[in-house]
């Protein structure tokens, strides 16, 4: 019926078509603006609801209260940052501080509003200048055998060791409940600190606490890379002969020798066994990827392409592959190859991609990507994660200013990166987020760049 009517009156179709076209025109910019969307592949399995009770002070030492406050805060933050727990807010938790297994009433915790499946509690005291801490983890829903974990810590009393004890207890809980993946509360992040005109290498705990300088070279040092055993720090430093790879021993607290080479030598990367270093060197004129021993001997080139080849990174799972940035087609793109330089494969299909970081399980590569690079193209540099086998990617940061230098945490659940809200280098901060792009928060103030998460 209706089709017949419209065919009979062709003039009425024109305004309808025009209206439809204008509607489409209106829709196009909004479609373009939202070219990303959040997908969820999880099956909806809930995370473990965990309550961390305030620990019970069991000594009258005046130091107990401040240290216990540090401990409680650090423990709660570590468990929150782990990203695998649904933490019971402190305001929801019962206002009790059970200090021992016989003092806890599990029903109090398993009932609403706490509704906790697990409770971490214990006692904390300072005696004779030592912190003595008993920590327990109880299954609130198992009245018969509730105990999951019991730990005792005895450390010298200090603010730092109170935090370390909390980190260690949190790592135990995460290891036990997180499927055997070790926690990251005791890991470190090495980064570049802008100090005046110089850049020095600094280090901090994973949560941004305890920030301190590592090098005092009075020059420009960039791209710190910590060795897998946490004993050495490789970085690139501007010296008399341009940028050279430098090596700093964290055990000796001094620089150790690394042979200099001609040209610009930047972006070192450790192999997961700690025996090799890959870096970019332009000693032959063109920046290429070179691989040498950890001491710098036996350097040999593994790429020979026109255009720069920089920022190598090993596959931490196997050590048999390298991802790097090559500019052979103009703008830099992410490539992967075998460790001997064969089997080259291009990963990104365009734009401006840089600073790859391979995830600890070897499945993903995080990198900074400006997909619409060039004059007149609105695009920002953001952090992306790509699955290596399928080359499917997701975007993790949005509309927060240029982001660069992603680095995976050793548990593969977090990514740390550098972000500058207004694009100025002096305002760059180090941020952390979960590997799905949630729970972003800044770790440092402005002037921190190029983070590198330690291997363990």
């Amino acid at each position: 019926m209706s089709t017949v009517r419209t065919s009979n009156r062709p003039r009425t179709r024109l305004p309808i078509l025009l209206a439809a076209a204008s509607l489409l025109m209106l829709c196009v910019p909004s479609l373009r603006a939202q070219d990303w969307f959040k997908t969820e592949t999880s099956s909806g399995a809930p995370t473990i609801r965990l309550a961390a009770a305030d620990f019970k002070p069991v000594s009258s030492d005046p130091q107990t209260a401040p240290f216990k406050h540090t401990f409680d805060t650090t423990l709660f933050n570590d468990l929150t940052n782990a990203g695998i727990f649904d933490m019971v807010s402190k305001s929801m938790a019962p206002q009790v501080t059970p200090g021992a297994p016989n003092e806890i009433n599990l029903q109090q915790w398993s009932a609403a509003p706490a509704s906790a499946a697990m409770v971490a509690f214990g006692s904390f005291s300072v005696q004779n200048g030592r912190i003595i801490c008993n920590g327990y983890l109880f299954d609130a829903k198992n009245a018969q055998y509730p105990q999951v974990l019991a730990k005792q810590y005895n450390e010298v009393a200090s603010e730092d060791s109170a935090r370390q004890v909390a980190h260690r207890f949190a790592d135990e809980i995460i290891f036990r409940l997180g499927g055997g993946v070790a926690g990251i509360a005791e890991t470190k992040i090495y980064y570049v600190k802008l100090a005046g005109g110089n850049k020095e290498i600094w280090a901090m705990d994973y949560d941004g606490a305890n920030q301190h300088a590592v090098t005092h070279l009075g020059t420009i040092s960039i791209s710190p890379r910590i060795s897998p055993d946490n004993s050495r720090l490789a970085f690139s430093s501007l010296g008399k002969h341009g940028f050279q790879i430098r090596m700093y021993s964290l055990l000796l607290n001094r620089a150790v020798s690394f042979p200099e080479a001609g040209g610009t030598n930047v972006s070192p990367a450790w192999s997961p066994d700690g025996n090799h270093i890959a870096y970019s060197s332009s000693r032959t004129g063109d920046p290429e990827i070179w691989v040498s021993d950890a001491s710098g001997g036996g350097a040999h080139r593994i790429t020979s392409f026109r255009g720069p080849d920089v920022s190598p990174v090993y596959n931490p799972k196997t050590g048999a592959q390298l991802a790097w940035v090559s500019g052979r087609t103009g703008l830099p793109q992410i490539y992967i190859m075998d460790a001997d330089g064969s089997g080259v494969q291009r990963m990104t299909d365009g734009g401006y991609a840089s600073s790859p970081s391979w995830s600890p399980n070897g499945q993903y590569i995080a990198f900074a990507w400006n997909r619409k690079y060039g004059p007149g193209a609105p695009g920002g540099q953001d952090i992306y994660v790509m699955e290596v086998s399928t080359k499917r990617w997701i975007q993790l940061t949005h509309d927060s200013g240029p982001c660069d230098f992603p680095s995976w945490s050793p548990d593969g659940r977090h990514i740390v990166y550098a972000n500058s809200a207004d694009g100025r280098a002096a305002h760059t901060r180090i941020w952390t987020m979960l590997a799905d792009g949630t729970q972003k928060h800044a770790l440092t103030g402005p002037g921190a760049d190029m983070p590198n998460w330690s291997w363990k």
Partner: protein
Amino acid sequence: MQSSRLASPTSASSPSRSKSEDAAIATQLQYSRDTRTDDKLGSNLVGSLVLHGIAAALILGGAYLFRSHRPPWGENASTAGAIQATMVSSLPLPPRQRQLDTGVLTSEAPSPAPLIEKEKTTPPPDLKEVPIPTKAKPPKKVAQKETPQPPKHIQPTPPQPKKAATGETAGIRVAESTIPLRNGTASVSVQDRTFGARFAYYVNIVNRTVAQNWYTQEADPVASNGKRVTLVFDINREGVPSNIRIETRSGSPTLDSSAVRAVQRVEGFGPLPQGDHITVEYSFDYRRQ
């Protein structure tokens, strides 16, 4: 004379006849000599004598004039009898093979003999130190008392409560954990029931980890709706699943394979709190959203 003797080979056989012939030849030679050279013999003899005299004088005089003034070889008293000779070993021959003095076989030096300690004689035990066993007294025997027999009649059992008591006692933990998912339910039970009761949290972690790795969109939503698949797998001491097999097929191959893949995706559940392996039964219930 010789030539004449050789010219008569028969002379040896007849010595009497040859004596007369020799005399005849000699007279013949004597005769011919006298006739030809008798006048020149004197002057030639003198000349020969003078020439020989001069030659002898020249030899003797030369020997005297050019005699050596140094002492003759080997007559010096100090070096007499000590003749210097160069040894063959000092010739610049190629170096001999390196001699290892450290090795027992290559070294020429005798290796030190092992220290042999003198055997010590153990002093005889002090007699007073040896305890003299005392005879233990046997325990006093006591006659066994007979225990009274229990009463024959059966004790009445208290009646079982017909309703489940809630709130009064803690519920008994069943070694099974069930998680509701968006697309169904995942439940896990451990075949070792004491493990499941004692470490219920671990069973929960197994359930949760597998459920998080179950990509429900892999299963065909129409064919799998309302179906249930049950897997059985082992977890070793390190918490790594292995030996995955399908216990009960659901009838939907996509649901079966998605369930198997969910377990295969898991790298580990964390080390077992007890024992070296457990066997887990895992059920997926698919319900269309």
